[in-house]
């Protein structure tokens, strides 16, 4: 057999497909994901978690291979070794120097000078978190392919890092009220610089997207959270003996059990209060997306979020934690199965992406423990 040969290049014919003929969804099986989660957990123990890069790759391959638009599935082409090399680079160029600088400052500077060095270092870390998230996504998209065409993320990682930091400060100052706007802006920054081959995504403010009740749902979550916490704190205060309660002397087991037990209804209440907002935000972002003439839509409901949260918590408990990949799959499967496409796309007009893909990835995000598996 001779070398790879290729004859007679010709232009690809046009292939216009209506969004209605491109049903989107995911058909992942829970057992397959439980198996990947199980062996990843076991092998992590014996490999000092080095296997996690390969486990994550297996998960993504399976998840994307089970995700389809029309009759074609998505492909994840990343490799465990790329993630591992990226991690090593990040550890030796950033994490160890950072930790070294913090330790050196602690050892060599007095308490007064220490804060002058530590505070800027930690502020820089917050910006680096945003940079890491952006770089991880750039890698992930560059290793995602549909119909042989690669996705890509362009734009400035540093700009994203500063924006995420600034929005975080604004969110804190406004007691959370800037949060939804921050999330939308950061999504826009990502998607407006994302490509499917030669086609650029756009994050539009179309009517379907902007009609989502972002701030009404946030108000319910915010007020609900405040009321829930207030009722919980008041109940705890009274049930612990009111003004006579002294937490310093009350450290018995019964107190700790009561404290944690009382948190369960609080978490459920706040979760319920936030479910509507979470569904709204996911719909808001998906409905904003357009690429190559098709617009994305979502029917994800508040009930979807509530049901997924409850069943996923149970799944995690009953699998002793190794169901974490199945949990992430179930979230994506529901989002994908509630998604649809409108408009028309000409696949023949979409050419291969020419942006240079990173040779390794996600190391920084992994070093900072920011990685979700998908």
């Amino acid at each position, binding site marked *: 057999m001779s070398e790879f040969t290729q004859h*007679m290049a010709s232009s690809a014919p*046009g292939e216009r497909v209506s969004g209605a003929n491109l049903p989107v969804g995911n058909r992942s099986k829970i057992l397959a994901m439980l198996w990947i989660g199980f062996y990843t957990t076991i092998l*992590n123990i014996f490999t*000092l978690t080095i296997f996690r890069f390969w486990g994550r790759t297996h998960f993504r391959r399976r998840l994307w291979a089970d995700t389809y638009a029309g009759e074609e599935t998505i492909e994840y082409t990343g490799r465990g070794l790329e993630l591992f090399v990226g991690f090593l680079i990040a550890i030796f160029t950033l994490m160890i120097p950072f930790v070294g600088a913090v330790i050196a400052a602690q050892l060599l500077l007095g308490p007064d000078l220490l804060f002058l060095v530590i505070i800027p270092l930690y502020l820089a870390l917050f910006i680096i978190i945003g940079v890491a998230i952006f770089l991880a996504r750039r890698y992930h998209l560059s290793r995602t392919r549909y119909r*042989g*065409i690669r996705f890509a993320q362009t734009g400035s990682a540093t700009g994203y890092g500063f924006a995420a930091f600034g929005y975080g400060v604004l969110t804190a100052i406004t007691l959370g009220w800037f949060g939804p706007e921050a999330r939308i802006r950061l999504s826009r920054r990502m998607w407006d610089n994302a490509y499917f081959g030669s086609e650029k995504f756009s994050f539009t403010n179309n009517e379907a997207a902007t009609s989502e009740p972002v701030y009404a749902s946030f108000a319910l979550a915010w007020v609900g959270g405040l009321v829930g916490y207030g009722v919980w704190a008041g109940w705890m205060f009274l049930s612990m003996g009111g003004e006579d309660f002294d937490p310093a002397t009350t450290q018995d087991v019964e107190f700790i059990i009561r404290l944690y037990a009382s948190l369960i209804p609080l978490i459920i209440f706040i979760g319920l209060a936030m479910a509507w907002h979470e569904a709204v935000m996911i719909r808001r972002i998906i409905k904003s997306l357009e690429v190559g003439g098709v617009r994305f839509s979502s029917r994800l409901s508040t009930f979807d979020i509530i049901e997924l949260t409850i069943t996923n918590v149970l799944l995690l408990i009953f699998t002793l934690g190794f169901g974490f990949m199945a949990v992430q799959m179930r979230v994506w499967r529901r989002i994908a199965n509630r998604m649809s496409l409108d408009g028309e796309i000409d696949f*023949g007009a979409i*050419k291969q992406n020419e942006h240079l893909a990173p040779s390794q990835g996600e190391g920084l995000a992994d070093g900072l423990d920011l990685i979700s598996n998908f």
Partner: protein
Amino acid sequence: MARRFEGRFFDGESASTTPAVAIFETGGLFIETPARQFAWPYREIAVLDSQATECRLGARSAPDAVLVLPAAARDALAEYAKDHHGRHAGARRLGAAVAVMIATAALITAILFVGVPAASGPLAQATPKGFEQRIGANMAAQIQTVFRRCASDASLDLLTPVIEEMAATGDVGFETIRINIVRTSAPNAFALPGGQVMATSGLLDALGDDQEAFLAVMAHELGHVRNRDGLRAFYRNAGLGLLLEIVTGGSGLAQQAVLIAGQLTQLRHTRTQEAAADEAAYEIMARAGLDPAALARAFVAITASVGEDDENDDENADKRKMPNWLKTHPDTDERIAAAKARAASTGDLPLRASDWAIVRDACRHDDG
């Protein structure tokens, strides 16, 4: 005999699809589309996905091209390219990779749990003393932002020359010894790097009038200073920190395993160092003309102060716990016996009773 399958092909140049016929032959896989023909050597072919009804193939030399064929084509590939795509080829490759990972993990573990602790001693000895003193001074300042210093200058002025004299005759290696007493009821003493020694008000309370027992505890801490144990612990911890950094993001189980292994390693080294510091204390006491057996009295008094409090007295709850000074140390009864065996006749105590009273009560009257 060749096997033919009909499928579809993406050339990796545009997103459009074309029908394709794939022919598996001995020499390789031949792909025919209406416009083009391709030949993929088996060694270059990668199975991108294999599902119940379809499989997807790619080739390293045409990295974005995708050939989608019926699932049966996967068997044909295994048949024609046993070496690359046989039934267990993928599992074998992954198994080999996992074996390399486990070997790497074992090597890292050995370096950090055996190599780094073994190197920590020579590394500490090679560290310039001025650098170590600076580290110790900053650590002491940071500790005092949490634990308030309670001894008056007058009491420290009395105590410091005595300890420095012991350090000089005991060949501790640091001329300047900085003594500090911090307010906390747990009877404890510890040495930081570079000749910084701290004792707690709880230790003074526990030892009461027994000046010699207090000096024996100080001699033990001077032993740590001489052996540069604070710096050695720092180097060991840095190794453990690095390992934890590597497993960050990994599973909780693996992180816990590393933490437990790290604690056990620390404990083993701490015990060795404590035994060495006891030996150093006997020598330092003897050279200072003091009775090494006073260390035994210190152990007894500290143990008694921890056990004698009223169990219902919440204010002394922290005292009832095993003091740190004893917890990480070798068996207390054995240490008492060893210290008693070193009993020797001694001269006068360095501080007059009235001066010792000033030191002993240093934290009792200072509520400010």
